[in-house]
């Protein structure tokens, strides 16, 4: 029997990670990567049968080497050899850059899909373009698995993706036997693959008991998954579920429903309730958030004080009460006011309230826009104010218009600040970040609106502004003051005051997201 080491491909995954693909009939081949005088053992070895070798034995392998673990191993000037015992195979430098493309083009299915699953498990990072698109093309061209076979049966209950690439899915999976290997998943979209964090056997599904005679039924055969695409999806995204084995098939492919962000959030919360382990629930939520919050620079742009003031308003009161809120603002304003309502639609009551405020104002009051997201910065060069209506009703809005030597003025309704021992400025900042009290902020419109050009991690614009405010405070570009909060009554109307699930609303979800992002940072 040929007991030699056969190396098919060997390529760099990143600056210090190398993946080797090949085969060996030895059950436990002692593969070593020699880099100059340094020898590196694989940090991960995946074995699998290959049809071309006409054997059911798992002779194929993918071996991952981490060169950063051995001093001197990541020296690019050193020659590489892949060895097993006394055998070794030299690896020409150009292979490190070109072999991945070759694996994708001519590699056997088993090696290719083992590679794809390593990406799905986040054991390695996915390829950059144009290779990524070729990977996608090969996945799509490969035979697919039916949802039910002799080896498994699976179902997808919900598979949702939001406009910023946040997504979650739930379903169930039963194998014919209990297997150590678990199902993996990817999202395919816009020529890219994105790993999905899939928690198999995490949700109770007693309703699947009818499958028990044919498959390994445990009672907790539901799976939960979440993911975040690196960019907002343009084309129809699809979820690829890859059950254990079946490396000659791509997997089970299903379209993701493109929905508004709140529906994804609701699915994450509902699913999290079903997960017994709250660490898993937090993981489910976390994986739908960006790895890092996209950060726009805090622009130190002076506002044109002659231009109309832009009021970006989360109107959390009755529609008809908009008139009183705007009257409070126009009463202290000597310039025209442009109002951008953070509402999905301009209802007749809002429309008439705006007209009513306009009738009573000394300067023009106009509607700049009405949408759940803030306006584009273009066209707004004056001051901009963001607030909830209930905050503006409570505050004297004049406080927001005071001349400021910073980019941003933040007025927070912190009930602790007015207490005898509550005046500490650092504590005020800490509570602003952690307790998330209601606030209003004012600054130049370009500075205030710039960060919303990026995909958002949050459901509410308020959370985005709080993040901006915290960045600006950290950079000494903002001033935070506490207004008396005693007597403040928060509104509970408008889209951002809706409940996602019992006792958890949009602001609560954003608070959890912010905490998860902070923990990650």
């Amino acid at each position, binding site marked *: 029997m040929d007991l030699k080491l056969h190396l098919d491909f060997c390529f760099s995954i990143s600056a210090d990670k190398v993946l080797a693909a090949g085969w060996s009939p030895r059950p436990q081949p002692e593969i070593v990567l020699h880099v100059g005088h340094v020898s590196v053992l694989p940090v991960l070895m995946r074995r699998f049968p290959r049809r071309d070798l006409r054997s059911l034995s798992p002779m194929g392998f993918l071996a991952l080497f981490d060169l950063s673990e051995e001093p001197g191993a990541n020296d690019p000037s050193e020659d590489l050899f892949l060895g097993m015992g006394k055998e070794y195979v030299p690896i020409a430098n150009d292979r490190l850059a070109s072999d991945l493309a070759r694996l994708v083009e001519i590699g056997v299915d088993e090696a290719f899909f083992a590679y794809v699953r390593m990406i799905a498990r986040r054991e390695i990072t996915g390829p950059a373009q144009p290779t990524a698109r070729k990977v996608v093309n090969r996945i799509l061209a490969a035979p697919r698995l039916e949802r039910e076979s002799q080896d498994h049966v699976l179902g997808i209950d919900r598979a949702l993706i939001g406009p910023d690439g946040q997504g979650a899915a739930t379903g169930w999976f039963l194998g014919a036997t209990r297997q150590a290997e678990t199902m993996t998943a990817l999202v395919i979209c816009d020529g890219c693959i994105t790993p999905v964090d899939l928690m198999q056997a995490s949700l109770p599904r007693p309703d699947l008991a009818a499958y028990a005679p044919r498959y390994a039924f445990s009672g907790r055969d539901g799976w939960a998954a979440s993911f975040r695409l690196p960019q907002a999806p343009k084309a129809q995204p699809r979820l690829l579920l890859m059950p254990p084995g079946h490396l000659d098939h791509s997997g089970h492919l299903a379209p993701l429903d493109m929905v508004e962000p709140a529906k994804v959030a609701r699915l994450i919360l509902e699913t999290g309730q079903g997960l017994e382990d709250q660490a898993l629930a937090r993981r489910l939520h976390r994986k739908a958030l960006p790895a890092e919050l996209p950060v726009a620079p805090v622009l130190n742009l002076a506002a044109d004080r002659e231009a109309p003031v832009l009021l970006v308003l989360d109107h959390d*009161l*009755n529609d*008809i*009460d908009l*008139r*009183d809120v705007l009257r409070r603002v*126009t009463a202290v304003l000597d310039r025209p006011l442009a109002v951008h309502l953070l509402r999905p639609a301009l209802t*007749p*009551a809002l429309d*008439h309230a705006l*007209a*009513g405020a306009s*009738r*009573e*104002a*000394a300067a023009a009051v106009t509607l700049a826009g009405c949408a759940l997201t803030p306006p584009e910065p273009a066209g707004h060069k004056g001051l901009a104010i963001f607030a909830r209506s*209930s905050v503006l*009703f409570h505050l004297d809005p004049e406080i927001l218009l005071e001349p400021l030597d910073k980019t941003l003025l933040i007025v927070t309704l912190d009930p602790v600040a007015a207490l005898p021992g509550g005046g500490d400025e650092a504590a005020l900042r800490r509570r602003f970040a952690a307790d998330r009290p209601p606030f209003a902020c004012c600054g130049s419109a370009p500075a205030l609106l710039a960060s919303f050009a990026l995909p958002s991690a949050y459901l509410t614009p308020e959370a985005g502004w709080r993040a901006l405010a915290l960045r600006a405070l950290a950079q000494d570009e903002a001033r935070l003051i506490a207004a008396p909060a005693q*007597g403040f*009554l*928060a*509104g*509970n*109307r408008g889209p951002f005051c809706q409940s996602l699930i019992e006792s958890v609303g949009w602001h609560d979800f954003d608070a959890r997201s912010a905490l998860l992002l902070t923990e990650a940072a």
Partner: protein
Amino acid sequence: MTRIVIVSHSHPALRYGGGEVAAYRQFQHLLSQDKDAWFVGSTIGPEDAARFFGPGQRLLSFSERDFCLRGMGMDSFSMEHPRIEDEDWILDFLFSLQGDIYHFHHFWNIGAGTIRRLRGLRPEAQMICTLHEMTAICANHGQMLKTSGELCHAASDVACAACLNRPPVDFALRRSRMAEMLDLFDVLLSPSRFLADRFEAWGIPPGRISVIENGLDHLEPRPETTPESLLYRSRRFAFFGQATPTKGLNVLVRAAELIEAAPPANPITLELYGVTAEAFAALWPGLKPPEWMQFRGRYRPQDCVSIMGRFGWIIIPSIWWENSPVVIQEARAAGTPMIASDIGGMAEKTEGWGIQFPVGDPAALAATILSVHDRPEILAEHIARIEPPLDMAGFDAEWHRLCGHRSSAPALFAPKRQLHHGKGK
């Protein structure tokens, strides 16, 4: 000549409520004095409007000075017109009257925004408001009666939120809007001390509200009393009012049931005016009034005083505060004493000549009725204590005095404030 515009939330030609009746009587009296007076009422909502108005029609004219606006329906919580065009039209109409004095009896169907903008357009005019009920304080029909049925003693944002199942901030905003609107009036009037006290407790500065009873002309002489007539009347009791849940008819019927269980030796009658047996049964289907309790149904308002004169006692068992019920003035005009609930405007207005019983207590009411039944001497004693109500001439004189007008000829005076209200219309 000073132009006086009387503005009411309704028009007595269409609905006969205390506030609009008081407003209209004032208008008629001013006209009788050859004053330059105008009356602007309104229909309550779209239902009335559909009945009385054709397409595109916004006004009914009862005379060249007497108008009824087409009410488009106003939420009494917000007290604002839902459509700004309706506010524009009413503002235009009121402004075009070029009143020197605008006297508002209520602000429902007129709107807080209309009043703010009229103030801005006519800063030199005197603006007066008579508070006929507690609508500015209480969003539950201005009655300060909790939805659970308990009497409410003070409004607060949180307590009101619990009562009416709305967020507290709604009430904070409403309170702010109402207080701002009331602050725009040069003169605030109340027909009862009780009502003025409630507004002061709510936040209106003490002394800002003047108390002036609604005027009621009472031309008919009181019925002559003889020992026989007093004995006859002392066995006769009556109720005047509508079959609404807060009028306490259920308390009265339960009291009658208690009396029926142990009836007095001599006859007793109880007649209900303004209520039909059907209307009563619809509200309280479980109650069975005794036979000596008669439903007399509707009556002509102008006949009220003469009908009251046939009775010994008029009972007002309301389970809400009442403010200054017309029925009390009418009983005074008729010279008929009252048995009244011991709260609010009823206690205030019947003090000295009426008998009060604990509100909502049928047993106490039954005992009170029996304590005066067949007792002509008690009846005579109470009749003797009744003072006639303020007539319209008296009201007019008092009105001019409280509003700072010179004697009987109202003249312009320095307004309370010059307000800037933007571009107005």
